[in-house]
């Protein structure tokens, strides 16, 4: 699973900024980025933000893509750029399931 590792604060800021990028344009927040808490391993307590190459090409409002948004550059910089992405085992962010 490919994405960014970020502090809880940065993760929350990214979530809010992505929502604002849509609502400030009068759009419903139809796409979001939400951090998943890393539950074990050396990054436990940090958050994982899923963001694989598919996220870059997903067709959005009016045929735009995420990189078309001017905010993308600054948000990406907060996370260290695309090269800062890591590939982690999904089990690191999978909570124990109460109902299985």
């Amino acid at each position, binding site marked *: 699973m490919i*994405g960014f590792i970020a502090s809880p604060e940065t993760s929350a800021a990214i979530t809010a900024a992505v929502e604002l990028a849509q609502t400030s344009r009068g759009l419903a927040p*139809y796409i979001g980025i939400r951090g998943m808490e890393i539950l074990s391993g050396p990054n436990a307590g940090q958050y994982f933000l899923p963001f694989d190459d598919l996220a870059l090409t997903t067709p959005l409002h009016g045929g735009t893509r995420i990189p078309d948004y001017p905010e993308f550059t600054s948000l990406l910089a907060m996370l260290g750029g695309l090269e800062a992405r890591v590939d982690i085992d999904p089990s690191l962010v999978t909570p124990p399931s109460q*109902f299985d």
Partner: protein
Amino acid sequence: MQYSLSNRLSSNVSGIDPDARAYIAAVEAVLPGNSIETALPNASNPKRIISDFIKAEKGASRWALHKRIYLPIYNNAAASAVDMVSRTSGTFFGGVTHAAGYVQGDGSSGYFLTNGNASSHITENNLFIGTLHNIQTTLIFRATIGVGSGTTNIALQSGSAATVNVGIGVGTATAAASGFVGSTGIISVAFDGSTRRLKRRTSSSNALLASNTIASAGLAPAFPFAIMARNNGLVFDIYSNAGIGASWISDDGGDTQNDLFTANLKTLWESLTGLTLP
């Protein structure tokens, strides 16, 4: 006279249902070129197809039962997030592929969060929910639609093997186990406060997979349903990688009415996408 007639016909769009008109407008507002015809090239008159679907629901007195109906068929996140009933928008998160006719989660991070809490749509003792799967999940114990809180779980979940696949949870964890089915088709669960029915509609049949009597279980969770995963009190889990072409959250209309709804939904999805329900 000739101008007057043609003008009247075109401005009236030959009786498109007003709720269909509102939904189409909401979808077209976010589509490239603002054209639903371009987004659905395999549909012959998509506006008419959508209108006919809603008119059939209204004609059978089912429309008021529906709280949310999502058609993520547009290969476009904004359009696929629009609810046909309220025209509000849900939100896609994580790894989700948007394809022509369906969406597909990655099985580890992708899901769709519906708009509004389950408790504002349904009660746990009066519900009819489901998903249209055109691609079977390859994962076990995963939810295609689900919400949970405390000991309450309302979900359609895959079963103990990827090839014999959808189990169901409605009610408390101890009452969660039920039938198993192949996971393509329109999978639904209805609960009227005593009888729980799990059904699967395929291209050729609509089968009752399991029916049992369980205790009334109280209020639905005050969290939104997730599609392609379960929203367990805002902790998202059991991600599915099934292909999802439609989903809905409704009140229970009774077995016959529910069957007629899934038949109508099948016609809608197949007519709009040009695909055939497996």
